[in-house]
């Protein structure tokens, strides 16, 4: 007897939860989007923690050491809340409302999820050791930094495992090879996109806290500290966002090649508007961030024509990227350039739909300008002319804006990616609207009977 049949036979009263698909979708979306924000902060935050504590140790910088302690406290608190969200989502929402999908997914992705579970235990062990033994470990600094590094590795393994699952849902391989499904076409692009994005996200959240401290701290000492952590977080936020356009390009290309319907939905269809809003937010992150760098250097008493030019170029690129496609170089141009059809029908190998051509120019400009701006800013900081605590309301507001924009873009990206698969939960395998009407496998449900669709034999498959 197969596992779903077993559920249906032994627990018929668990089969249907009286909640509509719409409400179920909204619940999961809300919780998962919130969970993603916490998880991204954890994963990126651990890396920033390890780097900061290492730098504080090697450079004998008390401010970096102090910030490391604050960061590990924040990570400990958010980890508990984020994990509770994830566990609630998995145990209650997925099992109760999306059981067919969830059972299928766990059966296919059994080993990655086992690895994730083990890494989760490792994360708990390392995080709470570092958190609770912070002062004692100060005497063995190499051990503390080593544990932080181990923490980063654990969280990265978890992200890898969950990215395997998420990418599989978008681009499953029609094969019974676990290896092919693990390294499915969008796995590595998604992995890189999230790895870099999580560090940028954590940096942006740190910058947001710095901005709030600049605006609302009354003590000059606290404002100076907020000023410093704002600058420090923003370097990570802008620095790591630089890599995103290139990785995003590759990601979009793989989706175009292997899940054309989803790509069409994102780039040319109903979700393309959301996608355009996403690049508008990206423009806001770069422009406001670079503007902050320029003004912060000026407050330090230095003039930086390079940063002024970078701000102007970034602003121009923001305008360019925010221009609706229908104005000029329009979608007709896209059609004219044969870019609205896939490669195998003779289209250009440019996967960005309504994003081309001028939005592409803007993204390339952002990348180049941001590298120059971060470099120029760090050069000024190293000259030692910066005095922390000088930042005013404009700098505080800029940091908060970047933090909010990064948070929004993270949520929007999750929405676009998940919604692009509609009407499927797993592309071409599991439908959304089958989930609330669980039926025994004898009826026309997705491939739930017997072995899973990738042929992994589980203990219950070998039953009578």
């Amino acid at each position, binding site marked *: 007897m197969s596992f779903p049949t077993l559920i249906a036979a032994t627990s018929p009263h668990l089969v249907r939860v009286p909640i509509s698909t719409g409400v179920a979708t909204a619940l999961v979306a809300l919780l998962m989007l919130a969970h993603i924000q916490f998880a991204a902060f954890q994963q990126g935050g651990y890396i920033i923690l390890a780097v900061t504590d290492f730098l504080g140790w090697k450079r004998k910088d008390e401010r970096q050491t102090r910030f490391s302690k604050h960061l590990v406290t924040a990570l400990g608190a958010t980890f508990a809340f984020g994990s509770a969200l994830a566990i609630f989502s998995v145990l209650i929402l997925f099992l109760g409302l999306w059981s067919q999908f969830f059972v299928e997914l766990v059966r296919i992705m059994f080993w990655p999820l086992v690895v994730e579970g083990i890494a989760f235990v490792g994360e708990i062990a390392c995080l709470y050791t570092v958190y609770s033994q912070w002062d004692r470990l100060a005497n063995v600094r190499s051990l503390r930094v080593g544990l932080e590094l181990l923490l980063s590795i654990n969280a990265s393994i978890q992200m890898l495992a969950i990215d395997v699952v998420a990418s599989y849902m978008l681009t499953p391989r029609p094969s019974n090879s676990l290896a092919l499904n693990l390294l499915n076409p969008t*796995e590595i692009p998604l992995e890189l996109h999230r790895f870099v994005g999580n560090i940028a996200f954590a940096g942006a959240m740190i910058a947001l806290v710095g901005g709030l401290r600049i605006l609302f701290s009354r003590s000059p000492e606290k404002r100076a500290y907020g000023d410093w952590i704002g600058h420090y977080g923003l370097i990570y936020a802008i620095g790591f966002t*630089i*890599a995103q356009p290139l990785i995003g390009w590759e990601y979009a290309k793989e989706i175009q090649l292997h899940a054309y319907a989803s790509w069409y939905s994102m780039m040319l269809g109903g979700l393309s508007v959301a996608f355009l809003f996403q690049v508008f937010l990206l423009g806001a992150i770069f422009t406001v961030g670079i503007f902050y760098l320029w003004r912060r250097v000026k407050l330090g008493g230095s003039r930086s024509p390079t940063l002024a030019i970078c701000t102007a170029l970034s602003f121009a690129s923001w305008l360019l990227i925010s221009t609706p496609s229908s104005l000029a170089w329009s979608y007709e141009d896209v059609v004219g350039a044969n870019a609205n059809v896939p490669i195998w029908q003779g289209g250009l190998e440019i996967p960005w739909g309504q994003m081309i051509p001028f939005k592409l120019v803007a993204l390339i400009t952002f990348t180049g300008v941001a590298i120059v701006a971060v*470099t120029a800013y760090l*050069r000024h900081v190293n000259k030692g002319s910066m005095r922390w605590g000088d930042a005013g309301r404009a700098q505080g507001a800029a940091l908060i804006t970047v933090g909010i924009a990064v948070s929004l873009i993270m949520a929007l990206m999750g929405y676009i990616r998940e919604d692009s698969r509609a009407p499927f939960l797993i592309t071409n395998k599991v439908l959304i609207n089958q989930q609330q009407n669980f039926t025994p496998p004898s009826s026309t449900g997705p491939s739930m009977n017997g072995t899973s669709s990738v042929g992994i034999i589980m203990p219950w498959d070998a039953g009578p």
Partner: protein
Amino acid sequence: MSSPSQPARSALVAKLTRPVARPMAATYRWVDERMGISDLTHQLLYEAVPRRGAWAYSLGSATLIIIVLQIVTGIFLLWTYVPSTTEAWESLNYIEHHDEFGAIVRGMHLWGAYVLLIIIGLHMIRTFVSGSYKKPRELNWIVGVLLFLMVLGLGITGAMLPWDQAAYWTAVVVTHVVDYIPFFGNWVQEILRGGPQMGPETLTRFFAIHIWLLPALLVPLIGLHLILLRRHGEHGSWVNYEGVETESEEVRKERMSSAEYPYPAVPSDPGYAVPVDLDDFFPSQVFKDALVSFALVVIIFVMAVVVGAPLERAANPAALNYVPTPEWFFLPLDQLLVQFPQAWMIPVGVFVLPGIGTTLLILVPFLDRSPDREPWRRPEVMVPALFAVLFLVFEALLAVNRLFNL
């Protein structure tokens, strides 16, 4: 029964070995008087090196040892390998399956090349991060970059020699790409192919480049690299110069005047001519170098035994469904190609961007002219370099993803 005391034991050993030791010592003295071996050994081994971070400096010696290993295993392969399109594959198949230890030697040559590229990469990163390319070591950096490019050239030409499917189609792609060189492309292509089409001469030409041309350029450059290293001394890293910015002129002068050979390095930025704390190259650094090199040779041997070197089916130009995949060290370049529209693919992806990257790499000492050595005080080179390295890693991973899912 009590054991003999130390002096008594030494005397006993000296007495027992005297019949052998005396003639050996006399022979050595005789040779040494005529050849100056002691002086040469003294010159080679007795020099000062920076004390801190010494394990990281062993990468250079490890590179040299692996290059020697490549030459030795290459000579062994040449005893059997036949550079002809009809016999190359057969001869390698013989080495692989019938020659005693042949598969291991071939495996060591392949894995030696892989490890060599990784170690050179790490050596370059170490040199870059520590700012060791700065005055007066600019020329040595340039020589190092040229050596790296030559090793890449050896890698790609070596990959063509088995003349199996992978080798043949690699040769097709490489000789196709050079056709895009402005003005001279067709000419270069014909030189490499030995005619307008791929043929028997293509293999012999790449063979000649692999075992004669590139080594003939490589060996003198290695010599120059070592001479320049000895001339200016090992720079080490910033940790060996802590406090030099704030030291008084008198302390600095004292440090300079009491410096051991080969320091002080001249010309130099103030304070960076002599590391603060020195150690002996022999035996201290030599021990670390030997240990790291030995560990790497063991790794190469184990990989050769466990994984070996692949040999696909013999080259078949008619097999049009064969999908050639590049060697792993060319994966970033391969991925870069597919990011451009067809018309720009090779001109921009193969020549313009890699050309700009290589030029910038060579010019690093002239772009970063500040006296600062700490990596965090050199953001103008560290930030772009970090992105360049991340870019290469990402491109390689994306290429793996693409090729795996073809």
